[in-house]
């Protein structure tokens, strides 16, 4: 019977080509609108480090103005001071730990004519790479010992290695940055986490750094912080760089890797003990308010997904509702027009269940067509979004459709079409046998 119903469905769709096209188009446009926005949202709310989500934690300690919380009503600061970053790092109480900040360096390529250029850099520690599972193409991260000895070592991104050395293995070569010589210790493979979860405070949707260098070196050489710096207490006048490092300004991001729940508890206890100890020294004037947040929690806390995306998603869903109401109306009209056939079939012995099957199969066919076309529409929708944001280079990473989105589009289309077919089908099944034969 299934094949027979498929045939009937095809006939019925062909009998009203314009109307069927309108239904398919309405479903496709509705799915296209919804899936375009949903795909962008899906990418923006992704967690690139999901596999280690229960092991990585962003560290927050509340060292802020006693009269004015960092974030109303009682949010702790989103970064830490250099004093705390150093103390917590040196204590070495986590399995792995990293302190880092965003900076930049002027790259001076070899050769007389080569023009120097600035690249984004990240001052960080050796653990950064294994913690965040950063893939290496050549070489490796610097040794933990370089974190202490302030060695001039650097890890390059794949793109920068391409630009500087034509993509060859450059490990061990010397690179000049701001008139200082660095040894290349490793080259990353393509690594482009979206969102850039390790630093969501300074634009979560931008390319990761091109250069990675030791945190201790950056501090000792006085590299500028290119990310956010916030202070609640003035820096001591005339104290220069030393004064800034000793100040209560927050500008460093700290992450720790803790392998299980008890390690997490131990680390939390350690943090609390540290803060209590600092309170005795007159620091941390606010109530105890420390947090260890997983990458997922951290991205939620920082509201990484733009509110506009949610507004658009809401409107796109309503848009789909309109498209479905449209489809229901058209299916109903079609069903009513066929009332005579239906009542004849009922009179000839077709059961309600059989009629139901027939109509559901027909609606399913429209759903499949709408879904397929909807995937195409989504593709065009994403190209449209890309075009609108053309000035924002990173947009290409936010408008990528993966197979899960394609599958979701098709499933949503079929479910929508079947949902839309329910009321018209119910009306059809209620047509009494032979009732319409008497008419006219």
């Amino acid at each position, binding site marked *: 019977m299934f094949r027979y119903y498929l045939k009937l469905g095809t006939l019925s769709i062909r009998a009203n080509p314009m*109307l069927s096209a309108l239904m398919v188009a309405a479903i496709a446009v*509705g799915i296209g609108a919804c899936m375009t926005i949903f795909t962008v949202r899906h990418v923006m709310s992704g967690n690139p480090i999901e596999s280690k989500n229960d092991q990585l934690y962003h560290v927050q300690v509340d060292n802020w103005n006693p009269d004015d919380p960092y974030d109303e009503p009682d949010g702790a600061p989103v970064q830490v001071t250099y004093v705390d970053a150093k103390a917590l790092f040196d204590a070495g109480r986590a399995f792995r730990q990293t302190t880092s900040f965003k900076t930049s360096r002027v790259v001076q390529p070899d050769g007389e004519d080569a023009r120097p*250029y*600035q690249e984004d850099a990240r001052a960080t520690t050796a653990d950064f790479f294994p913690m965040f599972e950063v893939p290496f193409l050549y070489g490796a991260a610097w040794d933990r010992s370089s974190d202490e000895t302030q060695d001039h070592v650097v890890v390059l991104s794949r793109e920068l290695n391409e630009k500087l050395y034509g993509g060859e293995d450059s490990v061990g070569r010397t690179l000049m*940055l701001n008139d200082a010589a660095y040894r290349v210790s490793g080259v990353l493979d393509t690594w482009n986490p979206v969102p850039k979860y390790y630093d969501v405070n300074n634009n979560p949707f931008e390319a990761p750094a091109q250069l990675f260098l030791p945190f201790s070196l950056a501090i000792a050489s006085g590299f500028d912080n290119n990310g956010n710096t916030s202070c609640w207490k*003035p820096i001591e006048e005339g104290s220069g760089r030393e004064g800034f490092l000793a100040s209560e300004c927050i500008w460093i991001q700290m992450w720790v890797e803790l392998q299980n729940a008890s390690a997490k508890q131990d680390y939390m206890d350690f943090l609390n003990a540290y803060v209590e100890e600092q309170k005795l020294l007159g620091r941390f004037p606010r109530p105890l308010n420390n947090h260890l947040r997983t990458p997922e929690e951290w991205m939620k806390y920082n509201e990484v997904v733009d509110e506009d995306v949610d507004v658009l998603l809401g409107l796109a869903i309503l848009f789909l509702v309109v498209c479905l*109401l449209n489809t229901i109306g058209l299916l109903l009209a079609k069903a009513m027009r066929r009332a005579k056939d239906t009542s004849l079939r009922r009179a000839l012995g077709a059961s309600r269940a059989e009629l139901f099957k027939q109509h559901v199969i027909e609606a399913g066919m429209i759903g499949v067509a709408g879904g397929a076309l909807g995937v195409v529409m989504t593709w065009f929708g994403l190209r449209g979004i890309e075009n609108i*944001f053309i*000035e924002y280079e990173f947009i290409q990473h936010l408008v990528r459709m993966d197979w899960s989105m394609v599958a979701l589009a098709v499933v949503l289309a079929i479910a929508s079409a079947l949902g839309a077919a329910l009321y018209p089908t119910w009306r059809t099944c209620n047509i009494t046998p032979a009732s319409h034969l008497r008419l006219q």
Partner: protein
Amino acid sequence: MEFGPIWRAMMRNKGGYLLIALQIAVTMAVMVNAFAIMQERSKKMSRPSGIDDANTFSLVSVSFNPELDAKTLVQEDLDLLRGLPGVANAVETNSFPLRQGGWSEGLHREPGVGKSVSSSAIYFVDEHGLDTFALNLVDGQNFAPDQVSWDSDSPDFWPATVIVTQALAEDLFPEHEGSYVGKTFWFNDENPANIVGVVERMQAPWPTWTGIERSMLVPLRRESEFARYVIRTEPGYRDELMVQAEELLSGSNKDRIIRGLGSAEEARKLSYLGDAAMIKILSFIILLLTAITGLGIVGLASFSVARRTRQIGIRRALGATKPAIVRYFMLENFLVSSVGVVTGGVLAIGLNIVMVQAFALTPLAWYVIPVAMIVLWLVGQVAVAGPARRASGISPAIATRST
């Protein structure tokens, strides 16, 4: 009129008509709220920055030779830039309106680091700042050259004089009436700042900040390897001077790079990229939605005409004129649309309340609802016109045929 018979005929097939009415209602709810958001965004985008956007550009010098003396370099650069024909004025500063990166500071009415009473964007400038940004000084005066200091020359970071925007002065001293010149506020325990001038407007670098109108000029120059120059040109010279200025500075010293060349207009565009995108996406949604609903009405009306071919023929045979048939379908659509737009008005307001609460949008303007109602009535009438005309073309002879 024929309202009575039309209404009773419709009541016999409630489901179908209710569906169209509901579709019109949801269309209207989406339309109205999308339009309200578009209005809000376009208002936000049209706020003046206070500077001469059309003739201003900026570039950054980054020196990478630790031996290079920043003070000398900046002075040389400024002399070069100010000497370029077509340049109205130039200044070294940390940011400019809508650049999306800058310095903000909490301010106090009394010395202390307690809860700040206001906050402001900070622009570090010399005495050329006021003219370079082309600000409208409404009270007081510009900095005298001896009020401008280098951070490396004085143990006090904050200078004693500032020029503030009108909005900042009002926020700092809400009770005060009359001139703000001579009023004092505090950066922290030790640094009072005396207002010497008030400008009408100068926006902060952050487009989404609620305090965007609060900013101040601070007569301080900071010794750093980074130096951002803002240059204002005579009208019409900007684009050629952008190229010239970059070449001039790149060639003048090999121990630094010049980067970040861009006009204030480009920065403004980038700042409002998301808002402009919202407007484009929402207008596309409104257009598409209207088209879908319109086509749906066409489809259903065509169906209804086809189904009633015989009845229409009978009516024609009984003496109904062609315009009477057209009128029937137009009126029928008008009734359905009316139910739709009235329900739609209620839905639109409900959705708006939800959106205002969830996303902090501005509530919609009252007149959007009647305008949307009229638009949707018109869409319905246009959509039904075709099928109605076809209906009126049905021959009375159909009545005599049996099917």
